[in-house]
């Protein structure tokens, strides 16, 4: 073939060849790499979205924990104050009981004293009247009956007692 020639066959074949190499580039290189790049882009976007979600979740958790902490603090303060109040009440009650008991003991003591005093008074009365009767018997001897005498002395003692 001549050095500078235009050959129809070569042109036709070259057209086909150029189409072939174009198709090879399009389907074996560009389409594949483009698909991969697109997928990479999607994965990147997904990764960013996941990171954002994780951050949001972490922030929500943080807020929740802060709220829980705050609640716990409040609860603690409430429990302490309630315990203090209860302790105060209990203490007050104990003191009150003690006072009441002491009062009861004193009242009982007072009553015992009063009873024993009246008992002693009665005994003394009996004894004094017996002594007086003996004295009177010895002094007057049979002038008055024993009963009359005794009655007189009782009356006298009662008057004395009332005055006392």
């Amino acid at each position, binding site marked *: 073939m001549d050095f500078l*020639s235009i050959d129809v066959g*070569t042109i036709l074949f070259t057209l086909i060849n150029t189409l072939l190499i174009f198709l*090879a580039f399009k389907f074996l*290189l560009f389409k*594949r790499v483009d698909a991969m790049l697109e997928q990479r882009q999607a994965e990147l976007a997904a990764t960013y979205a996941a990171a954002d979600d994780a951050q949001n979740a972490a922030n929500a958790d943080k807020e929740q924990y802060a709220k829980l902490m705050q609640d716990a603090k409040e609860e603690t303060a409430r429990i302490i104050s309630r315990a203090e109040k209860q302790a105060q009440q209990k203490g007050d009650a104990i003191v009150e009981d003690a006072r009441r008991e002491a009062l009861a003991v004193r009242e009982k003591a007072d009553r015992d004293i009063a009873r024993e005093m009246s008992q002693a008074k009665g005994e003394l009365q009996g004894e004094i009247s017996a002594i007086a009767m003996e004295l009177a018997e010895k002094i007057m001897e049979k002038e008055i009956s024993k009963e009359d005498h005794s009655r007189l002395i009782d009356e006298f003692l009662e008057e004395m007692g009332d005055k006392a």
Partner: protein
Amino acid sequence: MHISDFFKGTTEINVTGPKIIASFEIGGVTINFTESILLSWIIIGAVALLLHWLTKDLKTKGISKRQVLAEMAVQTVYNLVDDTMGKGNRRFAPYIGALFTFSILGSLISLLGLRSVTADFSVVLTWALITFIWVHYTKIRTNGFFGYLKGYASPVFVMLPMNVLSEVSLPVSMSIRHFGNIASGMIISGLVYFALTSITKSIGVAFMTIGIPAVLSLYFDLFSSFMQAFIFIMLTMVNVSNAAETE
């Protein structure tokens, strides 16, 4: 070829076109199956295998060195197309990448001692015609058919022959430039081999042909092949993107 022939070096220069391997007739038209087509098929096969190997298991992370190469290749072509044609023209990137690769490998195949595919005028003319048709299709699509026709008579009707000439000159200049550079490089390389052989003719062993042609090959094969491929795709992109602008 005998071993002794190798030591004799290059003793004659034949400036011919590609060899015809087979020839057949379809409807009275002779279709030649030439060396260029066979080499094109080898290149296409090699490129397809290479691309498949580069992209056979793409991952989104933890990528292999092969994938880095594949992504780099795609990104480079995308950047080039973006820079030259503007954004939104990435659909043309596969053709630009394919054309560049076909052109540069078609030229560089001479390094294997084979005939450059791009030293066949019919091959580069085909690519220039593709660009030409693409440019005019884009013009018609941008301006409408009548707007396209009116473009030839602008700014005044007298300019019509000039405009037609300038349109026709595009594929001619593109194809001749590419063909001329590669083919002349091929001829010069042949001449250099011939000259170096001549110097050592009396000795009988063409030792001068070892090494020296390699230095020249740096320009005529590597640099020139790259430049012509690059110029060709740049002209294609610039002309198509110009055609997309409304007049």
